């Protein structure tokens, strides 16, 4: 923490005072809903360090970006660029050593149900609960809804991911894709301010992955949720994202923040060109790194 303090004292970051003035105290929530230009999620100069047994690892260095209401914001980078670490910091599981992360103007200090995380691992579903119980679980434990209303809303979202038939099945009887659909339904049923997805489709086979991507986009068309989506796949980033943040590895630094191609044009020539552009930017890093390694 000592190093964090010195880092923080030095952080006279450009623009640190600029956008900040918009959110004013308790009216922050209402202001965020009213003003579409107020960033929903404001990540500013975030450096994250963590200790392993032997090293102090700097995962990201002074990363900053804004996520607006309704964004499909993709964080893209090779492995080791700290993108998952960054997502965990937004989730509140880690504290940045420098910089700050604000959701609707509120500083993020700990995990909370206003940011629901969808993990890559299939074991994120609680095996002792059925699909319906899993989806209703956060609604009940956080006191969002009472038993009956929670069941109804859970059922609505299960229907939305086409799993009504399996509402009373236990997770171990489902396939990987179905488990991820339940996890997505569980996250969306909470209607969080922002959905955090940590490579949710990475452990799926290629065919299922494409289907899940289509389904996620269809759900977005319906509900227009805000999602922060982490991936290492360039085609997935172009297809899912409306805006893409490119991170360089070791430590993660912002390389670019670009717009993706419009919805439904992920097979167009522009998409292919964008893919090449992104690929070159990521590839440039590897050439720089090679002599060091």
């Amino acid at each position, binding site marked *: 923490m000592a190093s964090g303090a010195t880092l923080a004292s030095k952080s006279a970051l450009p623009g640190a005072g600029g956008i900040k003035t918009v959110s004013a105290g308790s009216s922050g929530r209402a202001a965020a809903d009213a003003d579409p230009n107020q960033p929903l999620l404001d990540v500013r100069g975030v450096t994250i360090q963590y200790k392993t047994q032997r090293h102090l690892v700097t995962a990201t260095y002074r990363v900053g970006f804004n996520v607006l209401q309704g964004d499909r914001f993709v964080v893209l980078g090779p492995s080791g660029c700290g993108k998952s670490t960054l997502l965990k910091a937004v*989730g509140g*599981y880690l504290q940045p050593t420098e910089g700050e992360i604000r959701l609707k103007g509120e500083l993020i200090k*700990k*995990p*909370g*149900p206003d*940011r*629901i*995380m969808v*993990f890559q*691992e299939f*074991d*994120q579903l*609680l*095996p*002792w609960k059925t699909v319906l119980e899993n989806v209703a*679980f*956060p609604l009940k*434990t*956080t006191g969002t809804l009472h038993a009956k209303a929670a069941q109804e809303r859970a059922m609505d979202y299960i229907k939305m991911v086409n799993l009504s038939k399996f509402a009373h099945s*236990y*997770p*171990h*009887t489902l396939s990987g894709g179905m488990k991820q659909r339940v996890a997505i339904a569980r996250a969306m049923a909470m209607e969080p301010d922002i959905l955090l997805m940590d490579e949710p489709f990475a452990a799926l086979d290629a065919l299922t992955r494409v289907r899940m991507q289509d389904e996620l986009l269809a759900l977005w068309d319906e509900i227009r949720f805000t999602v922060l989506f982490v991936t290492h796949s360039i085609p997935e980033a172009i297809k899912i994202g409306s805006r893409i943040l490119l991170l360089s590895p070791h430590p993660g630094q912002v390389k670019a923040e670009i717009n993706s191609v419009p919805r439904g044009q992920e097979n167009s020539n522009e998409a292919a060109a964008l893919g090449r552009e992104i690929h070159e930017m990521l590839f440039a890093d590897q050439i720089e790194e090679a002599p060091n390694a």
Partner: protein
Amino acid sequence: MLEAMQRANIYSETLGPEQFGIIQKPLTLPEKIYNQSWLRKIAILVVLAAAWEIYGRWLDNPLLVPPFSEAMRALVEDVSNGTIPSRALSSIQVLLIGFTTGTLLAGLLTVFAFSTRIGTDFLETMTAMFNPLPAIALLPLALIWFGLGVGSLVFVLVHSVMWAVALNTLAGFRSVSMTVRMVGRNYNLNGLRFVGKILIPAAFPSILAGLKIGWAFAWRTLIAAELIFGVSSGQGGLGWYIFESKNQLNIPEVFAGLLTIILIGLAVENVVFRFVETRTVQRWGMQT
């Protein structure tokens, strides 16, 4: 290479499911019978009983090994005249008190151990010291502290249950996956709500294994303790029944007592724990 270019595309018609005769076929009756694990186990028991009967008759010395039929006669007789049921009941009562107390204490100890580092050290040191110590070795001390009675028995039972359960529960808590823990924290669960809603169900297979071991330790310890000082509050348990029968040279009754202990052990394992397992860890797919 040229030949590969010349090959035509091949398309074939597939049959719909309605055109197939049998896709799933039920098992035959002998296969179904053999698939029942309790039937296989009963077959093993029958063979063992037959071997005992033959050996007992061949030896022809009922003071050493009475045949199985003799032991069964004694068992049926003492069960029907109410001796064995009342003795067993008195043993089971004491056992339940000790087992429940031990489990609750183990639970407290584990939560303490899981939440603080010093608690972990405490639990680890205590288990390292006391787990290898046979509970029965504490009985003389217990008799001095708590006198002749249920108190001493409960003390040794708690000792025999607590460490095994605590050790397994802690191991279970530690093996709960990071993802599941993060899911719980995502929903603002913390403290005892986190333990109750996430850790205990997620670690249930280990906890159940600990309870099984604890139960076996407790049952063993109780019978041994009863053999040593027998009567508690005027009513002896099964251990005392065996001791009495041996003193009166009623060897079939001794075997009847041993059989009762085994039968109760089997019943707890195959009825009580099986019931809990099928309702929990098996249904949840945590154990096959």
